[in-house]
Structure formats: structure tokens, C-alpha cells
């Protein structure tokens, strides 16, 4: 087993395409003839990495984005404890799609400090699709897709479960996780699950000072029941996520001068007095996410499958600033309620000839979303309706497969602006009275978007069981989000005045990504390149006044540079991949790296916020002991270069220098009294190196957290 990942680059002799508009989800236990052994990773025309249970075990105690960061081409932006956001091939979360059990995770994902509200402990596996995948997964899948799959439900009678504890040195965090699965003998076919966890941590520590007010607490609970009837099943599940987290005192509203002040850059003001406690002060976030869903999977007699899902989710985000007096409500309060329905038809495989099979399906989906915002001027309320339909066919011949897909999406959205917000836009020329209709002191501003996506892809097994090529040519689109259209205000963590552009259109990417995988004895290598052209790439950048000088907005909190959302044509290209020698042998060596370039086509300048070049290397020692299962000892280095392709004056502060971290880990599983125990210690930043990460919001204010030991112990029963 690879020390950090199990990346699939093997050739699957029988190409079975588990087509689903919303990913392959675990509710297919009833359909295990189709999917039990193979993940989408093995048949995908995209570069895809699958994190299995062992990988996720080693990541235990980290949040979702940190857990994904071992994947080539994936990095994360941290804003505090339990508050990191994934980045895939240089695309931030608003250009990524996260599916939890096949359901689009709908949240305020545009915010720099709004981490995805997903419990990594609830995942049985996580699949990361790199590159545009709009046809399969729907809008927003421009940079990639993260598929979080719950563990499969029980398929036979009995009870099993897991108990795990994790202790994390940095922040003195403790985590307890419990899962129970069962199927009673009296009700065969009816399986159930109860799962929950609690994680509580104190303020994090950099090598030289405490990060004041980064304590956090997360708890999760989920429950599922599933009834199977032969090849059909019905599943109902509910999950709740609850986060309370402080936002570092250092990331308070500040000025550009302060951000660029070398003294403040060295160490945040007041940090010498910060001590690590479990107390969460202000500013802080209180976030809950609830998801309830029902899914039916109906296996028809001819082998076709119909899948239908209804999901309702509520994302409630409250952000509290330091206030005066008796104020106890949030200064930023977002409620996002989303109803989603989708229906998919997966046709039976049609054998067209010897070694020639046609697979595929089609589907429709629709959503209704409402956003209610209260607080300091920022974003409007809105209600949107969306609908999409797609179809997909895949022709499988011996040693190769080609696929073709198409998708059409519509979204209509009405935003409701207060007259104050409308006037703020009007004064800056971004809205005119004819853009909206005034009704009872509320401005209703309607927008409708349509977009079509196509994809063509193929897998060619050049040398059976040794070399395969994948090629994907896809388009993907994203509708502008509420903040890009109507934002009006100053976020507490960035000293700029942000103003939306209601005239923005759909952002569309055309992407090509060839991937080559080769496997020879215990050596395998996978390299994936990509080149994407994005029309109307919505960039957040300084606005210019009519004379061409940087625009300044005078507010009562000071004069801020005005940043706007402007459409540009952008090209992203790069390469990511990995090399492993001695996989699962006594000594294993793994190298992975990623390079991303992003350029504004017109100006030729680099874009802001693109991860710098990254290279990591890990050596694992994996001896065989009689009593121990899969013991390992790993030492690795992770190097992040300096981002040197940022144009002057656009970013708020210069990019931090390159850094190299040393990581290590050891662990094993063992059987005792018919139970399987797992034990491990992972060390991040062993040498306690001071560094700042270019993609992290924290880098404007402080160093990243220092050395961290994560000790985990778990058993299955």
C-alpha cells in the first residue's frame, strides 16, 4: 500500500462504467454486481485519485481539506483550526464541486474563511477528480470534484462498528468517533447506521507564538436506514454538522499599510500575550449544516437502473465580530436552504458485437435555493431555481473505451436588495434603476443563465496491464454567485472594499487533460497534464477609476482600495502526478508534484492565488511482522516553492518565501480478541519550521501552525 494514497493507475480488464450524474455512491450495495470492486477512479477518463479507508485513517484528526492535501494537484487554504478549504489544480472552492453521498454540498463556499461543512470521519472513501467535469457532475465542476462516499451499509445481518480516538498535540485537540452499523436477523434487508463524533481543540501554536483565538469545536451526527429489495433499495439519511471556531485575533480588520508592515509581518501585534486555551472568543464563527435525503434505486428486470434522490439541506453560518454592549447576534448571518431532486436512468449494457459494448444513461435534476442574509452590508437575499439534464454514452471495445456526454443547465435567480444596498451599487455605477424592480422598498433583481457542456473522453490500454492513456476534453460552466454579482462591503479579513458586478455572465471552461499511467512490477507512475481556457473567468482584482488609477472607496472605517469582480479570459495549464517504487514492499519510495500556471490572456500576467510549484517525497519502511498487519514507518519532505508569478500591486501582500517541511509517521493494525485495532502517530512539520503558505488566508497575518503530532487509536468490532 502506498504510504499516503492509493492512487489507481491499474488497468481494469472489464471496463464497467458506473455512470451516475452524481458520482458513485455507496447505496449501491444492492447493485454490487456493478460496482463493488471498481471505483470510478479505475474507469474515469479524468485524473482521479481515490483515498480509501487506510488513507483516511492516517488523516484522522484533520479536516476535510487537509485530508485531501496528499493528493497530487490538491492543496488547501487554511484560515484556522477546522477551517481549511481545498484547492484543485489552482481552482478555489467556488470552482469545485463537493458531493456528499452523491448530493451537491450547498454552502457559502465563496467565502475565503468558509470551509466545507463535511465530516471526514463519515467517509468510507473520498475520490478526487482533477479537471473540468461539468457533464458528469453539473455546474461548478471547473477545477475538479470531490466525492465523499459514506461507508457502504451492511449487506448481511449482524452488527459492526468502530470506535476511534485521536489526540493532536498542536491545539491539544481530542477527537472521539463512534459508528454502529446493523441489520437485524428479524428484518433482513433493513440496515441502519448511527455515527457521531466530537472534536475539541485549543488555540493553535506556531513555532514562535500562539495563534490567539483559534480554538474550535466540531461535532457531527448522522443516521441512515436502508431497505434493499433484491436489486432495488431505498435509503434515508440525515446528518448534522456543527462548528464553533474562533478566527485568529491576528486576522482582524486592518489596513493595507498594516498588512505590508514588516514588523507586523514578522509577528502579529499582541501575540506575545496570547496563551493557548479552549475558550473561543470574538471574532468567531458558528456554522451548522443539515442534510436530509431519500434515495431510491430501482433495478429493472432488463438490467437497467433508475435512481432518484431528494435532498434538503440547510446551511446556517453566523459570524460574530467583537461588539459593544449587549449585542449578541451575529454581524454576518447567512441561511442557505437548498432542495435538490434528481433522477438518473442507467441503461442496460448493450452488446453490439464481440468485445463491443455500449453503456450509458441520462438524467435530469432540479434545485430550489434560498439565501437569507442579515447583518452588516455584504450580500443580498436570493431565490434561485435551477434545472439540468444530461446524457452520456460510452463505447467499450477490447482495450479501450470512448465516451461522449452532453449537459444543459439553466438557472434563474432573483436577488432581493435593500434600498441601501441598491443605492451603494447605483453610486458606483454597477446597478441602474432599470436593472431591478422596486417593490415595497425592496429591489428585485432578476437574472437567468443557460449553459451547455460537452465532454469527449477515452481510455486506451496501450500495453495491457502496464500502460494506459486517458484523454478528456470537457467543458464546464459556473453561474456567477451572489457575492460576485452583488457583494457590497468589506469582509472582516480583507482590508478592501468589495463590490459585485451584476452584469457578469456564465463562466465557461474548455479543458483538455491527457493522463498517462504506467505500471511495471512494483513501480508505477501517473502523470497528468492539463490546459484549460476559461471564458469570462471571474477575477477578484483591484478596480480602476475612469482615469485608470486604482479606485479608492472612502468608508467610515477608512479608505479602502476597491476590488471588483471582472470577467477575463484565462488560461490554466500544468502537470501533476506521482511516482511510486516498491509499492507495498519493504521499502517504498513515492514522489509527487504539481505545477500550475494561470495567465490572463489579454495582459499576459499571472493570476493571484495560484498555488506555487509543489514537490514531495516519502520513503516508507513496511516490514512484515507476524502479529502486525500493514505496519509502516514513513519519513517525507514536502517542498513548496515561492509563487513568483504574481503581478505587482494586485495582491494585498507579497508572496511568502519557499519552504520545506519534514513529516513522519508510523502505525500498524493488529488483531486481538477477534477485534482489529489500529494505531498510528503522524507528525506534521517535525522540525517546527516557521513558514507561511501562499494559498492560505492566514499568510497575510501570521505564520502557519508549527509541529503537530497526531496519535490515533481505533478498533473495529
Amino acid at each position, binding site marked *: 500500500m502506498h504510504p499516503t494514497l492509493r492512487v489507481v493507475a491499474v488497468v481494469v480488464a472489464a471496463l464497467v462504467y458506473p455512470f451516475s450524474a452524481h458520482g458513485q455512491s455507496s447505496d449501491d450495495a444492492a447493485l454490487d454486481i456493478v460496482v463493488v470492486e471498481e471505483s470510478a477512479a479505475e474507469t474515469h477518463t479524468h485524473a482521479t485519485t481515490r483515498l480509501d479507508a487506510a488513507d483516511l485513517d492516517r488523516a484522522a484528526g484533520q479536516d476535510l481539506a487537509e485530508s485531501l492535501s496528499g493528493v497530487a494537484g490538491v492543496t488547501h487554504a487554511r484560515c484556522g483550526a477546522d477551517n481549511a478549504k481545498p484547492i484543485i489544480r489552482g481552482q478555489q472552492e467556488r470552482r469545485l464541486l463537493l458531493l456528499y453521498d452523491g448530493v451537491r454540498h450547498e454552502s457559502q463556499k465563496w467565502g475565503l474563511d468558509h470551509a466545507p461543512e463535511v465530516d471526514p470521519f463519515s467517509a468510507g472513501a473520498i475520490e478526487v477528480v482533477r479537471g473540468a467535469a461539468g457533464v458528469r457532475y453539473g455546474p461548478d465542476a471547473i477545477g475538479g470534484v470531490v466525492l465523499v462516499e459514506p461507508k457502504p451499509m451492511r449487506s448481511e445481518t449482524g452488527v459492526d462498528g468502530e470506535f476511534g480516538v485521536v489526540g493532536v498535540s498542536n491545539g491539544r485537540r481530542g477527537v472521539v468517533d463512534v459508528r454502529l452499523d446493523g441489520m437485524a436477523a428479524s428484518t433482513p434487508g433493513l440496515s441502519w447506521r448511527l455515527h457521531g463524533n466530537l472534536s475539541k481543540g485549543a488555540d493553535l501554536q506556531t513555532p514562535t507564538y500562539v495563534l490567539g*483565538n483559534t480554538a474550535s469545536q466540531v461535532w457531527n451526527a448522522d443516521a441512515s436506514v436502508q431497505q434493499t429489495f433484491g436489486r432495488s433499495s431505498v435509503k434515508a439519511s440525515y446528518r448534522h454538522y456543527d462548528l464553533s471556531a474562533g478566527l485568529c485575533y491576528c486576522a482582524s480588520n486592518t489596513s493595507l499599510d498594516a498588512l505590508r508592515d514588516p514588523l507586523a509581518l514578522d509577528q502579529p501585534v499582541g501575540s506575545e500575550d496570547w496563551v493557548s486555551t479552549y475558550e473561543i472568543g470574538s471574532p468567531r464563527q458558528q456554522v451548522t449544516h443539515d442534510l436530509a435525503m431519500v434515495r431510491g434505486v430501482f433495478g429493472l428486470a432488463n438490467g437497467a437502473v433508475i435512481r432518484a434522490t431528494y435532498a434538503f439541506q440547510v446551511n446556517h453560518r453566523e459570524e460574530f465580530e467583537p461588539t459593544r454592549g449587549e449585542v449578541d447576534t451575529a454581524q454576518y448571518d447567512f441561511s442557505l436552504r437548498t432542495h435538490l431532486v434528481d433522477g438518473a436512468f442507467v441503461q442496460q449494457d448493450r452488446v453490439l458485437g464481440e468485445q463491443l459494448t455500449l453503456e450509458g444513461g441520462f438524467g435530469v435534476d432540479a434545485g430550489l435555493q*434560498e439565501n437569507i442574509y442579515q447583518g452588516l452590508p455584504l450580500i443580498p437575499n436570493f431565490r434561485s431555481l435551477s434545472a439540468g439534464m444530461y446524457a452520456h454514452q460510452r463505447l467499450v471495445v477490447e482495450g479501450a473505451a470512448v465516451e461522449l456526454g452532453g449537459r444543459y443547465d439553466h438557472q434563474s435567480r432573483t436577488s432581493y436588495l435593500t434600498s441601501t444596498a441598491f443605492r451603494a451599487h447605483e453610486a458606483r455605477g454597477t446597478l441602474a434603476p432599470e436593472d431591478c424592480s422596486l417593490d415595497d422598498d*425592496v429591489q428585485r433583481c432578476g437574472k437567468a443563465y443557460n449553459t451547455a457542456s460537452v465532454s469527449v473522453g477515452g481510455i486506451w490500454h496501450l500495453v495491457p496491464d502496464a500502460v494506459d492513456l486517458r484523454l478528456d476534453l470537457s467543458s464546464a460552466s459556473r453561474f456567477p454567485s451572489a457575492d460576485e454579482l452583488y457583494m457590497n462591503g468589506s469582509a472582516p479579513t480583507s482590508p478592501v472594499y468589495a463590490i459585485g458586478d451584476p452584469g457578469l455572465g456564465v463562466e465557461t471552461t474548455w479543458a483538455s487533460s491527457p493522463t498517462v499511467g504506467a505500471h511495471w512490477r512494483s513501480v508505477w507512475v501517473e502523470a497528468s497534464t492539463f490546459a484549460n481556457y476559461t471564458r469570462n473567468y471571474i477575477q477578484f482584482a483591484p478596480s480602476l477609476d475612469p482615469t485608470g488609477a486604482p479606485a479608492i472607496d472612502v468608508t467610515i*472605517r477608512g479608505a479602502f482600495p476597491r476590488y471588483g469582480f471582472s470577467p477575463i479570459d484565462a488560461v490554466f495549464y500544468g502537470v501533476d502526478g506521482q511516482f511510486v517504487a516498491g509499492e507495498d514492499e519493504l521499502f517504498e519510495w513515492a514522489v509527487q508534484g504539481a505545477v500550475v500556471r494561470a495567465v490572463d490572456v489579454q495582459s499576459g500576467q499571472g493570476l493571484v492565488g495560484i498555488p506555487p510549484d509543489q514537490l514531495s517525497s516519502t520513503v516508507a519502511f513496511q516490514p512484515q511482522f507476524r502479529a502486525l498487519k500493514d505496519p509502516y514507518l514513513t519519513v517525507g519532505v514536502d517542498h513548496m516553492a515561492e509563487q513568483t508569478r504574481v503581478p505587482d500591486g494586485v495582491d494585498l501582500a507579497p508572496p511568502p518565501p519557499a519552504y520545506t517541511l519534514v513529516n513522519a509517521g508510523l502505525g500498524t493494525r493488529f488483531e486481538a480478541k477477534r477485534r482489529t485495532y489500529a494505531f498510528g502517530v503522524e507528525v506534521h512539520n517535525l522540525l517546527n519550521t516557521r513558514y507561511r503558505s501562499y494559498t492560505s488566508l492566514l499568510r497575510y497575518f501570521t505564520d502557519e501552525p508549527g509541529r503537530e503530532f497526531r496519535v490515533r487509536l481505533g478498533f473495529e468490532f
Partner: protein
Amino acid sequence: MKAYCIPALLVLLGACEATTQPSEENEVELITTVVLDLTSQTTGESIPFAWVDLEGDGSPVVDPVVLALGDIYDVQVSFLNELENPVEDISVEVADEAAEHQVFFTGAGVFGPASDAAGALFVQAYDDADSDGNPLGLANIFEATSLGSSEFTVTLRHLPIQGDVAVKTSGLAAVVAADGFSGIGGDTDVDVTFPVTVEP
């Protein structure tokens, strides 16, 4: 849009009205207005000078401050939310939490604890203090010392306690004079600039 609010959906949505009727009803302590009330110790005459931005549209209405050379003024600073009815006086809360707030006067036109500008037109001195004896800055003394025109900036810094540690300490104004606001903790709640003219 009301069409969406059909009864069956209403149960599920529960929020039709809330969506279509945006409000800012959460208490957000918006500050729209800064008023400097100058009372001449010579004439006893009181004149308010205001910095007002009701719309948040980036074009505030600012009264230029006019001082008479040699005159000494008692200056009361107030922070208002004029979008509320009746108008909310945030300076009451600032005074209540004096140990977590301080007003600073900086810029080319002013010489004082937080500004060592050469060529300043007037001298500012604090005329109040919190319970620890540190200046608050809602009450001040201005003395017009030189003829000319310039400008000065009024900054309200919120300095809430971090854990058990007070962020407001003595000598903050001197740090601001030396290093600017990046040298002290807390958040800027108000940062507005007034033109100032000292007349003969």
C-alpha cells in the same frame, strides 16, 4: 415570485417572506456619522462638524473644520447610527466600555499624543480617561496654533480584551505616533478624515 410560495412548498421553505423581504435586523452597530462638537473657550460658542455617510456609497458629506488662531476648544466626539430611528448614539457604548476603546487624532494638521506632525495647525490633548487612567478620547482639547489649511484623521479603535489580556494599555497613542496603527492591537471601527483651516 409569490408563485413559489404555494402552500405545499411553504411548509418546506418556511422562509418565503424572509427571503423576499431583506432586512438588516441583526444588531450590527453600523456607524454612519462622526460628529465633532467644538465649543470655544473664548466665545462659548458651540459648532458641530460632521462626517456623514448614510448610503455607504463612498461619497461622504464632510464639514470642513474651521478654527480661530489662538482659540482653545472643548471637543466632544460622537459616533452615530443615523439609519436608526431614533438615531442611535454609539458613543454611549464606547464610553461604557472605555477600557476597550480609544480615539486617536492623527494626520498632518494635528500635533498631539498620537501625532508628532511638524507644521501642525492645532494641538490636541485628551480630556478624559478610562477607569485605568488611560485616555479615551471622546472629550478633547484643541488649541489652534498656526494659520493655514491641512487635514486630520479621527480613528476609533476597538480594543477588546483577548482572553484575559487587556489590549488597551497605556501609551498606545505614542505607539501610533511612532509606528502607525499597525503597531497596536484591536480593530478600526471608524477612520475618517476632516479638512481643517485655522483662520486669523
